[in-house]
């Protein structure tokens, strides 16, 4: 494939690409990130730089070969034509909390697809006998996975809409710069203008009531899948006589409550806590904290477990 550039420029572009690849591999090898999160962040950074580099090359090719009066419209196409600008910036929403649902979804894809094509009825079939509870839980998990996939689809649609809004804003901003002295004179300025437009477009969508609803539904759907998988894993662990997260949580909760009670008892025994030796004048403190504590309502620890 040729870029339309003269041969010497083509060779130059090739040289730059090699330099980029050398840099990319060098940085990746030298930064020594060990955690999955660190690697993901490094990957994001490298991808961002590569995207920018590719964009520069693409823009340069068009500027070097096209009709100047039509350039900006083709540039719009080159930036926004291949999809929407947020897919790379976002990565994958489902991998953000340390992996999980997307990997599970990939693993279950072969099961889910026929389930979806067979319709939801299969997942709502009543269960019978000794294994009915197990079957119901498995059906619920499958329904949750189907729902998660649907919520992800809605979310991606909104991201695509944000991309289109960004394109409209970008076009409007470019159209606003046709006066001498306001024209865009560098690739970087063009890129920055695009980023501003993309963010404006995103903000318009992300502050909408629809986004709020879809975003909430997506996170809730992901949590239902996670919780369902946890239940299945815990069930298997119990079968094998292994301790489970729920049991550890129960112990932790009891210990936490016990520490509170001990601390409160100590405070009462100490008469409400030690007061400092005052050396400066100040307003008289209100009644001691212990009195306030004694009079207050019973506290809730805030915990509310789902069953």
């Amino acid at each position, binding site marked *: 494939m040729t870029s339309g550039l003269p041969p010497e420029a083509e060779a130059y572009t090739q040289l730059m690409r090699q*330099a*980029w690849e050398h840099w990319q591999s060098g940085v990746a090898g*030298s*930064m020594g990130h060990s955690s999955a999160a660190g690697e993901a*962040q490094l990957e994001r*950074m490298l991808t*961002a*730089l590569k995207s*920018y580099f590719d964009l520069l*090359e693409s823009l*340069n090719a068009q*500027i*070097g070969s096209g009709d100047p009066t039509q*350039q*900006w419209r083709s540039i719009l196409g080159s930036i926004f034509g291949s999809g929407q600008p*947020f897919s*790379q*910036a976002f990565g994958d929403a489902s991998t*953000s*909390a*340390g992996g999980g649902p997307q990997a599970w979804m990939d693993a279950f894809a072969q099961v889910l697809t026929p389930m979806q094509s067979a319709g939801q009825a299969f997942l709502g079939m009543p269960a019978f006998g000794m294994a009915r509870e197990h079957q119901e839980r498995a059906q619920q998990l499958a329904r949750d996975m189907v729902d998660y996939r649907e919520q992800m689809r809605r979310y991606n649609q909104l991201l695509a809409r944000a991309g289109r809004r960004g394109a409209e804003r970008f076009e409007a901003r*470019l159209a*606003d710069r*046709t006066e*001498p002295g306001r*024209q*865009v004179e*560098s690739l970087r300025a*063009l890129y920055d203008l695009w*980023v501003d437009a993309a*963010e404006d477009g995103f903000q318009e969508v*992300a502050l909408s009531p629809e*986004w*709020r*609803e879809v975003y909430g*539904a997506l*996170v*809730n759907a992901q*949590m239902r899948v996670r*919780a369902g998988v946890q239940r299945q894993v815990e069930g298997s662990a119990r079968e094998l006589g292994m301790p489970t*997260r729920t049991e*550890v*949580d129960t112990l*932790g909760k009891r210990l*936490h409550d016990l520490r509170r009670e001990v*601390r409160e008892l100590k405070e009462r025994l100490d008469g409400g*806590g*030690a007061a*400092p030796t*005052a*050396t*400066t004048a*100040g307003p008289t403190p209100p009644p001691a*904290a212990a009195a306030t504590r004694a009079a*207050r*309502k019973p506290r*809730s*620890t*805030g915990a509310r477990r*789902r069953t």
Partner: protein
Amino acid sequence: MFTPLRIDPQKALAEIDTFRRKLAAGMQNLQRVGDYHFGASAKELVYEEDKLKLWHFTSGSAAGRRPILVTYALVNTPWMVDLQPDRSLVARLLERGEDVYLIEWGYPDLADRWLTLEDYILGYLDRCVDQVRTRHGLDRINLLGICEGGAFSLCYAALRGHKLANLITMVTPVDFHTRDNMLSHWTRQLDVDLFVDTLRNVPADLMNWCYLTLKPVRLNQQKYVGMVDVLDDPKEIENFLRMEKWIFDSPDQAGEAFRQFIKDFYQGNKLIKGEVEIGGERVDLKSIGMPILNIFAEQDHLVPPSASRPLRDAVGTRDYTELSFKGGHIGIYVSSRAQREVPGAVHDWLTARPG
């Protein structure tokens, strides 16, 4: 009518060449980069409890000054206020003769998932305040709360105000339901009970991902493109990497405290309504009668000024001062403008209010 683009092909080629050269230089500089840890000012550990540490900065000469206790948000480490010698709110306060303490909340693990807002505010924070009061033999100290730590400080001031002389809040949300508060907008329809019951503690990576996607292209791409501009400057690379480390070296969130903060503050907007309860005690901002300095950042996308400004009418004090800073949520601590403007304003305001 002209075309909006006036890019000379030769200049464009030169621009790409510059980009390439900076990348090449950057690889060498990245390999040579030295230690870029944060925490610049000399300090001593004066109190420790569970994972919490209370630090006292020792490099100042603070004779006669009422100490300031800095309480940061739970969502990052507090070292943004002492990132490096030339970017340090703490260092600039010490230079002016202030006596500064700092709470480091630590990194909660799953054993800490049951910590509630009561544990943080009426437990840890209150005991740190008592430690500082006792060390100085004072009834009342100054409290400086930042972001979520500012919201904690407001709750504390409403419930234990007799221990405080002055309150300073920085980039602190008070009204969580203003139209431009994107973070709040996104949390409104989360099922927080399901969320916390499933995750238990909220992973730092998830929190960071959420913050990055508030400005997805700017924070995931443009920032790194901008980094290339400084790749040939070892000192600037170090600054960039130090900031990166601070951003991503963040603690998980203790589940129960997170549950209550999202439900009551973000979803219910109960702080400004006077409906928050901490450990069974109602937080009434009108009961805060001490002098307040409220500092917010005009370009703050996490806590927009519209979320901070309502503090003026929500509190009972008649001595309320606002400082509007031209910058963002992070720039208010580390930018050169911040170094010039913020610590001096805090020091002057406190000097006028010796308590």
